[in-house]
C-alpha cells in the first residue's frame, strides 16, 4: 500500500507544476505594466526603470517562472502591489479564518447530510425521503451568494452578519457554505446505500436472520460510506472556492475574500498567491482522500 500512496503522490507533482504554470502564464501575459499599476501616475522615468529591474520584469518569461517556483518553495509568493506587503504574510493572516469556516461547514454538512441520507435510503419513497431529497436538491441548485444574502437579511437583527470577531459571526457563513455540501452528501449517501441494499451480500445477510437494523448497521453502512469519504476532498475544493463568495458577502477576512479583492483591485501577485495556495490545498485534499480511501477499503488495502 505504501507503493500505492507513493504512486499517488508522484502523479500529483506534474499536476501541481502544470497548475502553477497555467496560473503564472495567464497572469503574466496580462497587458499593462505592473509598475504603472503600483505607482499610478506622475512618477519619474528612472524610478520606473529601477522598479522594473528590481522586479526582474525584463527577464524572459521562463526565467521568471522558475524564479517564482524557486521563491515559492522558499515560502515567498511575492509582494502585493496594492497592499505593499508580502503575499505569504497576507495569506497566513487570512487562512485561519477560512480554515475555521471550512471545518465548521464540513462538520455541519456531515451532521446534516449523512443521517438524512441514511434515513431517506432506509425509508425509500416515504414522505420523509421525498421531502429531504427535495430540500437537498434545492440546496444543490441554489447559488451560494443568494442563500447568503437571504440569510443575511432574514437574521439581520438576531445574528452578526459581517466580520469574524466572535463565534456567532461564523453561524450564518457556516450554514451558507455547508448547505449545498449537506445536500450533496445526503444524496450521495442515499444513492450509495440504496445500491448496497440491492446487492447480493445484503440478501445473504438477511438470509442469516439478521434484523433490518443489524443488516444496515453491520453490512450496509460501511460499504455505503466508503465512497462518501472521497467527498471530503471535493468538499474542501467546493468549500474553498465557495468561501470566496461567502467571505465576501459576510465581509470575513479570509483567503477567498482576499482573492476577490485582488481581482477587483487588479493585484496580480496577491491573486496569483491566493489562487495557487488554494489550488495546492485542494490537490492535497484530493490526495488525502485517495490515501484515506485505500486505508479504509480492504479491497485496495491488501493489494
Amino acid at each position, binding site marked *: 500500500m505504501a507503493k500505492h500512496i507513493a504512486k499517488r503522490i508522484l502523479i500529483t507533482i506534474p499536476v501541481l507544476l502544470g*497548475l502553477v504554470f497555467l496560473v503564472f502564464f495567464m497572469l503574466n501575459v496580462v497587458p499593462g505594466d505592473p509598475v504603472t499599476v503600483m505607482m499610478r501616475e506622475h512618477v519619474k522615468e528612472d524610478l520606473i526603470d529601477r522598479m522594473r529591474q528590481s522586479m526582474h520584469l525584463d527577464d524572459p518569461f521562463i526565467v521568471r517562472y522558475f524564479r517564482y517556483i524557486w521563491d515559492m518553495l522558499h515560502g515567498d509568493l511575492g509582494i502585493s502591489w496594492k497592499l505593499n506587503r508580502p503575499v505569504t504574510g497576507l495569506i497566513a493572516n487570512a487562512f485561519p479564518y477560512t480554515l475555521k469556516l471550512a471545518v465548521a461547514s464540513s462538520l455541519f454538512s456531515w451532521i446534516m447530510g449523512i443521517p438524512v441520507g441514511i434515513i431517506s435510503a432506509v425509508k425509500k419513497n416515504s414522505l420523509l425521503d421525498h421531502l429531504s431529497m427535495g430540500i437537498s436538491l434545492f440546496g444543490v441548485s441554489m447559488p451560494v*451568494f*443568494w442563500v447568503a444574502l437571504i440569510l443575511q437579511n432574514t437574521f439581520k437583527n438576531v445574528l452578526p452578519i459581517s466580520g469574524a470577531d466572535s463565534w456567532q459571526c461564523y453561524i450564518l457563513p457556516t450554514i451558507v457554505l455547508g448547505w449545498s455540501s449537506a445536500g450533496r452528501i445526503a444524496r450521495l449517501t442515499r444513492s450509495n446505500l440504496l445500491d448496497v441494499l440491492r446487492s447480493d451480500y445484503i440478501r445473504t445477510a438477511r438470509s442469516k436472520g439478521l434484523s433490518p437494523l443489524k443488516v444496515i448497521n453491520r453490512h450496509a453502512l460501511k460499504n455505503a460510506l466508503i465512497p462518501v469519504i472521497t467527498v471530503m476532498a471535493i468538499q474542501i475544493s467546493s468549500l474553498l*472556492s465557495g468561501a470566496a*463568495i461567502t467571505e465576501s458577502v459576510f465581509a470575513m477576512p479570509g483567503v477567498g475574500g482576499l482573492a476577490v479583492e485582488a*481581482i477587483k483591485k487588479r493585484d496580480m501577485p496577491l491573486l496569483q498567491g491566493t*489562487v495557487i495556495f488554494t489550488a495546492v490545498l485542494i490537490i492535497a485534499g484530493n490526495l488525502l482522500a485517495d490515501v484515506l480511501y485505500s486505508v479504509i477499503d480492504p479491497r485496495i488495502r491488501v493489494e
Partner: protein
Amino acid sequence: MKFLSKDKYTRALSEQIINAEIQPDEGIWMSIRHMFRVNRAALLGLILIALMVLMAVFAPLITRYDPNEMDLMVMNEPPSAEHWFGTDDLGQDVFTRVVYGGRISLMIGFVPSLISLVLGTALGLMAGYMGRHVDNVIMRLADVVLAFPSLLLAMVVMYTLGSSILNMFIALSIINWAGTARVVRAQTLSLKEKEFVEAARSMGVSRWAIAFRHILPNCLPNLIVLFTLDIPAAIMWESSMSFLGVGDPNAASWGLMVSQGKDYAYMCPWLILAPGLAILLTVMAFNFLGDGLRDAIDPYMKT
C-alpha cells in the same frame, strides 16, 4: 448526483467505458424515451427548460416594458398587478429584467457548453487517435484543468482577458472542455481496437471517416449527459462571478441583478428573490434532466 465533481465523474465514466464489453446501442434512445415516461422530474425539467427558452426568445411579446426603460415615478415598488415582480431603484420593471436576463443567462449556459463540447470532442478524438505525445499533452492539461477549482480558474481567465461577455464564454469553455475530452478519449480508445473499426480500416476507410461514422455516434449519449450537466454549472459560475463583480458589467444576467439588488435587499427583497429564483429554477431543471439522462444511459455502460 452520484458524483460530486466533474473530475471524479468523468474519470469513473472513462474507466467504465474502457472496461465495458458492450458498447451502447440504439436501445439507449428507447430507454431515454422510457425514462421520460417514468421519471417525472426529468420530464418536468425538460418542460421547464423549454418554457425558459421560449420566454427568452419571445421576451418582447411577454412583457410590455423595456428592460432598460427607467421610470422614476415607480422606484423600488413592491410587486403589483402593474409590475409583477416590483421595480428596482431605477424604476425598471423587475419581471421584464428577469425575462431579458434569461436571454443572457441561458446564452451563458448554452454557448460555452457548446464550445467546450466541440473543443473537448476534437481534443479527445485527437488524444485517443494520435496517442503518445499528443495524448500525453492533452490529457495532462485536462488533468490540471479538472484539478483546479473551476470558479478560481474562470476568475483568473477573466482577470487576464478582462470583463466582457465574450471573455466569459472563453473562461467557461476553458474550464469545461476537459471532462468532455476525457470521456471522448476513453470511447475512442475502447472502440479503436474493436473488430468493426478494424474491418472498416482494412477496407481503406480513412481514419477521420471512421471517427465520424463509428466513434462519434457511440460517444453521443455520454456527450448529451455532459452537455446537459455543463449548462447549469456554467449558469452558476457566471452568476457567481457577476455577483462578485468579475463578470461583464453591461450584461444584465440574473447574477448581476442579484448583485445590483443586494444593497436594497432588506427593504425590497423582490430585487434579489426574483432573479435568484430564476437561477434556482433553471439550474434545477437542467439537473433533473441531466440526472435522468445519466440514469437512463447508465445500464448500457455496465459490463
